[in-house]
């Protein structure tokens, strides 16, 4: 048999029904705080015995604390408790508003459950808690905190020597949140094979130059790099624009259409290598279809259901992640094809068959997405 604090209510139920009296223990209060952005809701269990010691609640002095006596003293209880608790973001207090008073049982007797709300000026990254309850009357009093934010719960104990504590809300800090979005962007590129394939198709001919309808390999790296830069910049610019528009809700396209268009973009880019239509102007192709890819990226972010305050940081971080992953891919591909361009009969063994393969893959994706059938598994 293993019993944890979480089983408390159940075990207490048993206790109260079987044990003849409550436990003698040192004074504890139980403070539960839930943080959501700038909003805080809380419930604070304080022993009636402690409140009586501080406020003399037993109005008729008969040693029995009745619900009537507690209810009549509701305002005094809240004033007393809330004047001994401050919640802060940075140095700014979050004003606390009292809610209702309920009653609960703990192992040493009945507790008042004070429910409250607080509103901070900004979304909470780090919550400062200044806890002063009862220490002036009971040096052994402790405040046991359970703080929940972003799906994680942490605990802390407040004592006379640890009255003020700052609790970082984990994933919610601005920097770690931003890092998370960067990571998400990188993952999205690495896992979403179609974006890379489109880029790959556009990069394959970057080490060649088309003169009089035939391919010639470039002599030096610089013309290849210029071509790559044009393509990558155009692609980045285009998908950044539509990504922002989609995430901000300005333009929205049905995802089926976007997915099909992305598949089509791969086919066009690949076929362009075999039957050049855009020739040396592949950046226009990158730009035009990049707009579609931007809509494709947006799904990953809109799925998160982001709050307005997070949008800017999310967009910036995600886009940065996409660009990092994309540049890493470019850094891998471009040197490779530059070396290969004269080692092998490049057009015959790399460009033509590679492009054909990419076009084939694109076609299968297109069919799959347009007809909603499964060609590739």
């Amino acid at each position, binding site marked *: 048999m293993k*019993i944890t604090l979480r089983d408390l209510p159940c075990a207490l139920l048993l206790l109260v029904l079987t044990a003849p009296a409550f436990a003698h223990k040192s004074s504890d209060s139980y403070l539960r705080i839930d943080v959501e952005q700038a909003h805080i809701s809380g419930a604070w269990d304080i022993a009636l015995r402690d409140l009586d010691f501080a406020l003399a609640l037993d109005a008729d002095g008969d040693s029995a604390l009745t619900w009537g006596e507690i209810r009549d003293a509701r305002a005094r209880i809240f004033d007393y408790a809330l004047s001994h608790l401050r919640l802060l973001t940075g140095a700014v207090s979050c004003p606390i508003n009292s809610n209702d008073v309920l009653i609960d049982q703990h192992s040493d007797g009945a507790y008042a459950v004070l429910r409250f709300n607080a509103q901070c000026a900004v979304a909470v990254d780090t919550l400062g808690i200044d806890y002063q309850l009862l220490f002036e009357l009971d040096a052994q009093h402790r405040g046991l905190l359970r703080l929940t934010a972003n799906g994680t719960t942490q605990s802390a104990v407040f004592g006379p020597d640890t009255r003020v504590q700052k609790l970082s809300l984990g994933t919610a800090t601005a920097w770690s949140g931003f890092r998370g979005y960067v990571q998400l962007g990188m993952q999205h590129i690495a896992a979403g094979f179609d974006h890379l394939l489109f880029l790959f198709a556009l990069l394959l001919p970057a080490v060649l130059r088309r003169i009089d309808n035939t391919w010639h390999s470039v002599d030096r790296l610089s013309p290849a790099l210029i071509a790559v830069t044009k393509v990558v910049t155009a692609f980045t610019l285009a998908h950044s624009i539509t990504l922002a528009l989609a995430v901000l809700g300005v333009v929205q396209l049905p995802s089926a259409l976007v997915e099909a268009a992305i598949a089509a973009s791969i086919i066009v880019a690949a076929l362009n290598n075999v039957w050049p239509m855009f020739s040396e102007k592949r950046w226009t192709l990158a730009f035009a279809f990049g707009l579609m890819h931007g809509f494709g990226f947006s799904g990953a972010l809109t799925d998160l259901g982001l709050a307005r305050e997070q949008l800017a940081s999310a967009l910036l971080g995600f886009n940065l992640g996409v660009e990092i992953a994309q540049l890493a891919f470019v850094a891998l591909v471009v040197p490779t094809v530059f070396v290969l361009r004269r080692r092998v009969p490049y057009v015959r063994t790399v460009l033509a068959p590679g492009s054909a393969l990419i076009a084939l893959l694109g076609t299968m994706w297109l069919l799959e997405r347009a007809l909603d059938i499964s060609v590739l598994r």
Partner: protein
Amino acid sequence: MKIAFHLFATLLWLEPAFAEPFLPTDDTLVLERTSITRRNPDDARLIAMRTRLSQLPTDATTAAALAHLYLQRARTQSDPRYLGYAQAVLAPWSTAEQPPTEIQLLRATAAQSLHDFDTALRDLDMILQRQPHHAQARLTRATIYQARGELPAARADCEQLAEAARATIAQTCIATVDALSGHAGRSYARVAALRAQLMDHDGALAPWLDGLLAEFAERTGNHDAIAEIHYRAALAATPDDAYLLAAFADFLLDHARANEVTELLRDKTRADGLLLRFALAKQQLRAPETTLLVATLTVRFAEARARGTALHVREEAMLTLKLRNDAPRALALAQENWQAQREPADARILLEAALAAHQPQGAADALHWMERTRIEDSALRALAARLNEIPA
């Protein structure tokens, strides 16, 4: 008892709402009994003192009187909330290097009660440097040394007491230390003689001596009937003394007299240590409510851990070993406890846990301690013998 019944009835009535916080609908519903009420004359005096002190928080005389009252209640009711109250009253002097002696002594007593022995010793050392003949400080320090198993230091303080306090107190103090050092029989004889000489007006001393005589008789083995007579005499004078109740309950449990334990402790289970003995008795009787009592105890000790103070580690180890059957965890707790307290009961739980966990080396410290002190204690000797049979 009537109050307890009323409370119990009230709680039964509330039962459906227990799982969650609830909003009572009846204004006359009694939710709690206050521990201090102005209709009680003793409490009224206490409340008046509080009021006076709130107007003059740095008045040492009032603060000392109130802290003294709180500490007394903490002991007689074994309610640790009063320890915190006492410390709060003494707070204006909490960091003072040289507070008034009376205040410093109370500060040390509060720390001792919370098992913060280092803090208590620091204050007592300072008092005794200034006033070597301060009897109470001397006796309290001897008690702490004894609890920590520092017997030569304890005995030295007891000897010093002879100059500061009545001979009875000094000699009893010495006998107590000697009883831990292989002379339980001799100590019994000496304290029995002192007990016989007590005058009627020594009412406060009698139960102390009776309790010690019971322990000495129990430790020497074969004198159980005599031990029981002394336990009953001590309890007749101080029926609510939690320390005595626990010791007598352990005695009865050792002799498989669980029925008498449940009778003895029936309405005294607010203290964790006594609820533990109550549960052990229920277990001996194979009573179905044992499971519920164990759950309750587990919650109580978990709460103490959650707040960061572990006051009753010895009892926590007993619960873990005897009622939850988790020998390895119990051994770890008993070892933790041994670092803070080194009395026979602390040695006993450590030996028992090591035996159950089949880890004789886990109790090595206690075995060395037994050798060094040559303590005379039949229960400990028997356990040590069984431990030595386990191949290391």
